[in-house]
């Protein structure tokens, strides 16, 4: 518990310290940021030790939970933040330190959001996350980013209303009442906005697809994890107490949202030629898979099948890590290739020859997004689909076939097409090839994905 407080303090203090650094001393700013992240990570790890925490707990101190869920989200956010921070500083310019602040604050807020069910803390952290997110995007200064940021801000404001209403209804209504269920549903609207679930996703393709990819890489990977973690906690608390009919309604909503996400995301990405936009749609698809896990969590409480819930949560945790690492890397790679123009597919051609390490890392990461064993992404999808195929949950079955899991699998298969398009473009021979510097993030991510992917089955059995 102490660790949490100290790390948050570290992050917050650094953010403030950055304002004190004289203009132009980017190296100093960067250093401060990295030290903050390092300290937080250390503190969290020290507190996490000896790694025997439950995946999700119901005991909290000062409203902040200490369990695997909160630590995984916090660590993932910190790691990605630490790796992405230098990218902000690379392009020079006077306001890089502002970027750094937003990143630090965003990570801190995500960490709190993932660890709490206290309504006040929820509101505060969610607000801070939103603020950090659209500031991050706006700070790039170019027209597309500004437009995206505004769209995001508008919709964020709208969703915040529903967040307040939903959370309060869920928290303060009598246990097991209709109001409580309605509260959860309205919260889901807000979650849908933050995560990018259709039909609340409309801002996402514009923001992810056209804005400056560097803040997007931070945005796409970590800022939604907190919201998802909150959703998990909420469902965990509320679902067991609800009457069955209301429980069914929540499960149904989640199923509909999940299918909408998967289908829209994958199909719309199929014919994209702008890789950045393609990755935006693929984010929607991945969120769809994560929502599938949420629906299984909800269903496991309604149908009284704890086994399914366990695997769903496990899958989600693994998915968080894999998704965060992958998406951040991809967008940072795209920012490198894109330069000032658009990240059209033809721009990627020839990179296989000129920038070997980058290409290899990015290829591995794309394979991870596909869900190729033995990478980590495979295990995430595997556990999620496995949990959805649990035969005791009858809503996921039709005529004896686990249709829900099948939809997920088929969509994964469809996604192979557009991911491979990128890999193929990278390795195509081209005379006019740009070259990409060997970026640290893709490299580190790809290594981690491979290593963790191989180790995960062993770790889980422990």
């Amino acid at each position, binding site marked *: 518990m102490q660790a949490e407080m100290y790390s948050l303090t570290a992050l917050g203090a650094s953010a403030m310290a950055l304002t004190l650094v004289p203009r132009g001393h980017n190296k100093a700013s960067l250093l401060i940021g990295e030290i903050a992240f390092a300290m937080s990570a250390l503190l969290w790890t020290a507190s996490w030790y000896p790694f025997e925490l439950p995946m999700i707990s119901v005991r909290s101190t000062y409203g902040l939970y200490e369990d695997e869920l909160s630590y995984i989200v916090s660590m993932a956010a910190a790691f990605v933040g630490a790796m992405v921070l230098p990218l902000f500083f690379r392009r020079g310019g006077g306001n890089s330190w502002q970027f750094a602040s937003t990143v630090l604050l965003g990570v801190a807020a995500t960490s709190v959001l993932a660890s709490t069910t206290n309504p006040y803390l929820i509101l505060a952290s969610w607000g801070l996350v939103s603020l950090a997110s659209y500031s991050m995007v706006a700070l790039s200064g170019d027209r597309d980013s500004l437009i995206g940021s*505004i769209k995001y801000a508008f919709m964020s404001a709208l*969703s915040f209303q529903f967040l307040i209403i939903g959370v309060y209804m869920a928290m303060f209504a009598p246990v097991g009442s209709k109001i409580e269920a309605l509260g959860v*549903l309205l919260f889901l609207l807000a979650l849908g906005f933050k995560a990018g679930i259709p*039909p609340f996703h*409309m801002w996402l393709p514009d923001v992810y697809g056209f804005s400056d990819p560097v803040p997007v890489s931070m945005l796409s990977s970590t800022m939604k994890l907190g919201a998802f973690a909150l959703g998990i906690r909420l469902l965990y608390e509320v679902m067991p107490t609800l*009457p069955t009919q209301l429980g*069914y*309604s929540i499960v149904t909503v989640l199923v509909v949202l999940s299918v909408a996400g998967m289908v829209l995301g994958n199909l719309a990405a199929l014919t994209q030629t702008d890789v950045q936009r393609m990755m935006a749609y693929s984010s929607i698809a991945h969120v769809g898979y994560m929502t599938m896990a949420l629906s299984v969590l909800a269903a496991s409480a309604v149908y009284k099948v704890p086994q399914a819930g366990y695997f769903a949560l496990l899958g989600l945790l693994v998915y968080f890590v894999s998704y965060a690492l992958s998406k951040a890397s991809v967008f940072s790679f795209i920012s490198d290739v894109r330069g000032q123009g658009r990240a059209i597919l033809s721009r990627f051609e020839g990179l296989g020859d000129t920038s070997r390490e980058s290409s290899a890392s990015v290829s591995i990461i794309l394979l991870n997004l596909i869900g190729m064993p033995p990478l980590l992404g495979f295990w995430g999808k595997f556990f999620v689909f496995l949990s959805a195929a649990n035969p005791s949950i009858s809503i996921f079955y039709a005529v004896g076939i686990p249709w829900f899991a099948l939809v997920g699998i088929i969509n994964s298969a*469809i996604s192979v097409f557009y991911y491979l398009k990128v890999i193929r473009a990278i390795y195509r021979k081209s005379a006019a090839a740009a070259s990409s510097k060997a970026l640290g993030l893709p490299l580190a991510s790809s290594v981690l994905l491979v290593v963790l992917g191989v180790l995960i089955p062993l770790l889980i059995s422990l």
Partner: protein
Amino acid sequence: MNYSYLNAIWITPFLAAAIALPTALKWKRLASVISAVLLAVPALLSTYMVYLIYVSGFKPFTTSLAWFTISSTSVTVGLLGDGLSAIMALVVSWISFMISVYSCEYMEGDSGAHRYWFFFDFFVGSMLLLVLSNNIVVMLVGWEGTTLSSYALIGHWYTDEEDKWVGDRGKYALGVPTWSTPSSSGVRAMVFTSFADIGFIIGIGMLYSASGTLSLYTISQEMPTVLATLNKQGMLVPFLFLFSLGAFAKSAQFPFHEWLVTAMTGPTSVSALIHAATMVNAGVYFMLRFMPMVISAAAKDGLSGAVSPFFLYTAAIGALTAFMMASMAVVSRELKLILAFSTASQLGYMFLSIGLAAYVEPSVALFAAFSHMISQALFKAALFLAAGALIHEFSSRYINDMKGAWHGMKWTTVGFAFASLSLAGIPPFSGFWDKDLILDLAFRSGLWYLYVLASAGAFMTAFYIFRAFALIFAGKPEREVREPGRAMLLPYVVLGLLTLAFGVIWPLPVGVSLWMYRAITLDSYARLALETLPPLEFLPLSISLTMALLGLGAALYIYSERRQIFSANGKSGIASFLHSFLYDRWLINSLYYRIIVYGFSAASQGLELIERDGFDEFYHAVLPSAFSSISVRLRGLQTGVISKYLAAFFAGLLLVLMIYVVFLLVG
């Protein structure tokens, strides 16, 4: 007494093959001499083996060496020494030796000599392994080894020069080409025989599952149990049929005879060895090895009635083949083709005789087949070797181009004449005795239709061979012809003399034929009862002799003056139809190609159409375009107008609330 050294009989030729291949690449002459010399070893050893069996009073022996074991059954490599295998090995090895000597001169200058000698020796080794093996799986190995060598040797001149073809170029029957090149002939030989070997292998499986053993000796002991088991399962006749299918194909019986016809594209020495004297006799050996076991076991079990349909089938096929092939030979214009048809025809007689074992005294019937096999080996080899010399001298494979060979090739004429007389069945040549025995048995069996077919075949046999003789040797030569060298000349002259000698000795009480008779019956593993050889009855004897003389006389009369009786441009429609029907091999080949080959080809094209325009089109055109259009439509949702985005948000809200209310009301 350890007889393992006798395994050298079949090992030596393999050794010779291994030596000959690299040697012939550089020193062709030396390689051929080495092969010939090394092939003398099995010849001498098998003579010694026959002596051993004779001296021991016909006690069969066996040696074995374990090769591999599968779940408590071991496959052993070893020797089965009884009368049947010893005599077969004797015949095979001596004829192989003589033909290898012939080949030294015949194949001189050939660029593919290394392949020739390798496969020649490999063949001899496989054949000897086949007849000597004491284990049915190893017998199969030898069997397939002969198939492989046959393929390689038939297609030896794979560059397909036209003078190596069989058939007339450009002649079609029912839309199917009637000629065959060496490369396609090799494949045909392999396909026909391998297809039938499926039956052989299935038969081995059935035999093993019913008897639990693969050793020939044990099988012969267990045969009554095997037959009883199979009969209980209702599989007795199917088993016999399947098991011997390989033998039928190997010995070119109808409907598998086609491969032998086109196999004449190979070198003549190969034709002599493989397609006259040894490989085609493998089928007969097979029947002679297993049918005695079947007969005696069936008698013991009381199943003689149950197995007789199979024997009737065998006899019928044999008689039919004999008749059919003889009729084709009557009109054929190529010398080697006549001899090929003749081989299949004579094999038909052997199968007829084997089939008759269920209707007359079994040991006599089987002995008749055995004796005829040996006779045919002698005279057919002689005929083929002489044919090789003649074809080489006249540079043509057509008998019409050969004329008046008597003048320059006196010894060849003698050898050819002796062999022809034996084939036609004129006493005192050996062919007379056993063919007559077979016809006598057919007469006595009561199956008169088979007798009629066989007798007609005998008439045609004499006719066609003397037609060839007359066309080749009579008349005035158009140019100078000479005898071939001694290496080529001696083998077939010797064989011709042997067939005379064999025939003279046959009926004599000194007991050569009796000795062979014992070898195949009492002293083989089957232990058939030794019955007295019945005397030849007068009526069938006179009929067959008359037939033979008539055929001989008619042929000599017509063809020595080259009178045209049967010709393609005859005036009568029926005669010319008959002629082309016989010339095109009863249209059987054309039927096979039309039905099987072209049929499959058409089916394949049909399937390709389904695959290409059905599945392929679906996967590569229909599906992708469907998904692409969906994708484009979905992307169109992003209008970029923020108010629309907010509206979508509210639409989502509405959706969620609707679901909630539905469940509220329903629940």
